[in-house]
């Protein structure tokens, strides 16, 4: 499996998705070799190995034997992640990507501590090329049944690996350039995305929404694309017995009585934080006591701060910057409403997280997650007035927010990573029969 992000080197949903998929694939008995652009530590878990291309490169330089896996960095997974016996015969998947230390509890023989958390540096295209070059020797060394790669950064590597090994290639699309920068994205990235989808034996899209984009913008035939929605792992702490009697602790401000509305995501055009802010402005004209929280970092942050001042609401909008995983959970627990304001969202994992905290959620219709949820409020991303109305309704009408909270878990309980992995397993078996 070829991946780019993997916790802790994650900047968003891609790393979380890779992690969720790999864990559930291992549970169902598959063997996964995950290739990431950067190594994370050394350990080993049955069925799972992680290869950092940076380390691989060192090996090549030293002209050591490629197959000497003792020098490869590997991970131990939790004991409770032992592969389950699988009804279908397990396959070995080659994945290239990057990995989460804290989540996987890699503890042994850490070779080098990560020096920075940057997944997308200024030399990204160079990194991507280097990664693809190294994929050839990795593919020639490892034994596997098929190649599964995640997003454009890894597609060239996947194509090379397919050429070297002759094994089937699956390109998994978590996001497209049309989501990230509608109408003015990088042509180079678009080309890599289209090329990957064209060469792949099958394409996996995270939603019908994304499938439509691939068909419309890249001319990929729809029959070639399978939709596998992302999932969520419910944590025991997230599902209180009675959601309506939860007392919220407050990490933010003492004025708890003020209802709070949360935006959490990259502060970029794709995520629509500007629409969120304009809606906040409309809301505050009616209910000035409401507070808005914007969590995340990105290139629109300064603009948003400025705009917030300009609209005279700087004291009512709190910018929290990038948050640690722990802090994120805390923030979810301390707000009354979650908004996904994306202009174009292939899936939207944060919505599932918010629902797992039994939060009323408002989501833009231009999102993949919208396809799998019923007990949410929806609007078109540009309809600031409707967004403002929905926020006001959620905080003003208690019977509404109570009903939404009650049904939140009902909505997400069938949306699991195991469910996603089982669909992916079906696709694996199909491509291996080609």
């Amino acid at each position, binding site marked *: 499996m070829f991946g780019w992000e993997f916790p802790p080197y994650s900047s968003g949903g891609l790393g979380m998705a890779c992690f969720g998929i790999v864990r559930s694939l291992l549970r169902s008995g598959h063997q996964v070799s995950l290739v990431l652009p950067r190594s994370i530590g050394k350990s080993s878990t049955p069925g799972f190995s992680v290869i950092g291309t940076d380390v691989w490169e060192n090996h090549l330089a030293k002209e050591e034997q490629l197959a000497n896996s003792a020098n490869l960095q590997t991970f131990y997974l939790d004991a409770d992640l032992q592969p389950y016996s699988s009804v279908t015969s397990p396959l070995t998947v080659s994945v290239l990507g990057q990995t989460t230390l804290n989540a996987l509890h890699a503890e042994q023989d850490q070779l080098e501590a990560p020096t920075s958390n940057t997944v997308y540096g200024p030399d990204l295209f160079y990194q991507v090329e280097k990664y693809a070059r190294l994929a050839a020797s990795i593919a020639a060394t490892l034994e596997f049944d098929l190649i599964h790669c995640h997003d454009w950064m890894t597609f060239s590597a996947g194509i090379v690996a397919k050429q070297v090994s002759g094994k089937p290639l699956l390109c998994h699309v978590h996001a497209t350039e049309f989501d990230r920068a509608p109408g003015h994205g990088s042509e180079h990235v678009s080309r890599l995305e289209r090329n990957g989808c064209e060469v792949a034996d099958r394409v996996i899209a995270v939603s019908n929404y994304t499938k439509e984009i691939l068909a419309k913008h890249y001319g990929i035939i729809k029959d070639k694309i399978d939709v596998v929605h992302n999932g969520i792992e419910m944590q025991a702490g997230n599902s209180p017995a009675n959601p309506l009697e939860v007392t919220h602790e407050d990490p933010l401000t003492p004025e708890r009585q003020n209802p709070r509305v949360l935006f959490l995501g990259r502060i970029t055009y794709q995520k629509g934080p500007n629409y969120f802010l304009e809606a906040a402005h409309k809301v505050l004209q009616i209910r000035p006591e409401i507070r808005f929280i914007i969590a995340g970092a990105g290139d629109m942050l300064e603009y948003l701060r400025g705009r917030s001042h300009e609209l005279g609401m700087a004291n009512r909008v709190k910018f929290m910057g990038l948050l640690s995983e722990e802090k994120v959970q805390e923030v979810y627990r301390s707000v009354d409403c979650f908004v996904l304001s994306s202009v174009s969202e292939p899936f939207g994992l944060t919505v599932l997280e918010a629902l797992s905290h039994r939060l009323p959620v408002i989501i833009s219709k231009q999102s993949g997650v919208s396809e799998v949820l019923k007990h949410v409020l929806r609007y078109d991303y540009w309809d600031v007035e409707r967004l403002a109305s929905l926020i006001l309704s959620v905080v003003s009408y208690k019977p509404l927010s109570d009903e939404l909270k009650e049904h939140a878990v009902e*909505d997400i309980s069938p949306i699991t990573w195991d469910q996603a992995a089982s669909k992916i397993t079906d696709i694996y078996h199909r491509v291996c029969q080609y």
Partner: protein
Amino acid sequence: MVNLCPYFQVHQPDRLRDYKILEVGRSPFYLDEVANAKILQRIASLCYRPMTALLKKLIDQTGGRFKCAFSLTGNFIEQCERFDPTLLDSFRELFQTGSVELLAETYHHSLAFLFSKGEWLEQIELHKIKVQQTFGITPTVFRNTELVYADWLGTEINALGYKGTLCEGVDRLLEGRSPNNLYQHPQEQNFKLLLRNYNLTDDIAFRFTDQSWTEWPLSAQKYQTWIEKSAESGSLINLFMDFETFGEHQKEESGIFTFFEELVQNLLAEGKHHFVTPSEAIEKLVSVGPYSSPELTSWADTERDISAWKMNRMQEDAFARLQKLELSVKEIGHPDILAVWRKLTSSDHFYYMSTKYYTDGDVHQYFSPYETPYDAYINFVNVVTDLERRVEEASELKDRADRQSLREGKMLGEQSAI
């Protein structure tokens, strides 16, 4: 021999427009008249006109031996007056044949009895006046909104002078008895009950176009054998359904019109079977005994209770808000405010808010103009909130005016005393 008693409910809700919370206090216009007009006209051409014409034809062909009953809500009659006045003529022609009975119900297709018996009685009276004015008919048999019924409601309806009512034949209350007989209220022995045969009704109303149904496609011949089989347990078969079944829920292409036409012709061809109106059934047949419904029952969903309209917090809140407004709405005596408040009592608004089965996607959504039950609630409460403000303002004005006239009256009194 079978006595077949078909009854058709005709109703169109007054749908609310998209009323944003930001508009509260700014706009007193609540209805989506464009949608209301469009939907009425669409269903008029799909169902109301072709089906009333077919019924008229069948009555003429059979020399009046084909009979049926109707009930038209006040909302529907008003919508016809607003958007399509000649549509009422189609119904008027049917009523003039003498083979069609018109039943009484609440003016606003409401469940007002759930929060105010007084309002419920007023709406029954308003409906009675409206059908007298529109069709010159005074109904003698009652049907409550969504066939909601309970013993205590029967007692009330009996006290209003009606001979009987339609209700659902609920298995758990029938306890093995057949719905195909005339029953009576357990205490009010002269008050008769006609029980819907939901199996035979749903074969037409729900399953007719269901291609996964083992009996699909349903022919008039096959259905007739079911009727005859069912009639072994009793001679009165009550088929109570939405009139929109014909041409709207079941489209013309499904063959629903031809099916119905053939069914009526076949049943009457041999002279064995009869069609009856509810009044005739009550006069002609002998009650086989009491049917008691201690709880509220209805013809909706599989539960046959009122949970489709009053179960979740949003529905409870919506009822509570209307109830709270009733007294002041009536005190201020502003006809516009009273009229709009009454429109909000229509059961449809509450049905749209139902989260029952919503996860699976179901019949509730088919009827709803909203994307989700949550949107239905938000819109409704936005409107009610605006209405609350208007009522408050009007009450203040009225108080001031009352005080003023009291003062003037006093001065006048003082003057005359001098």
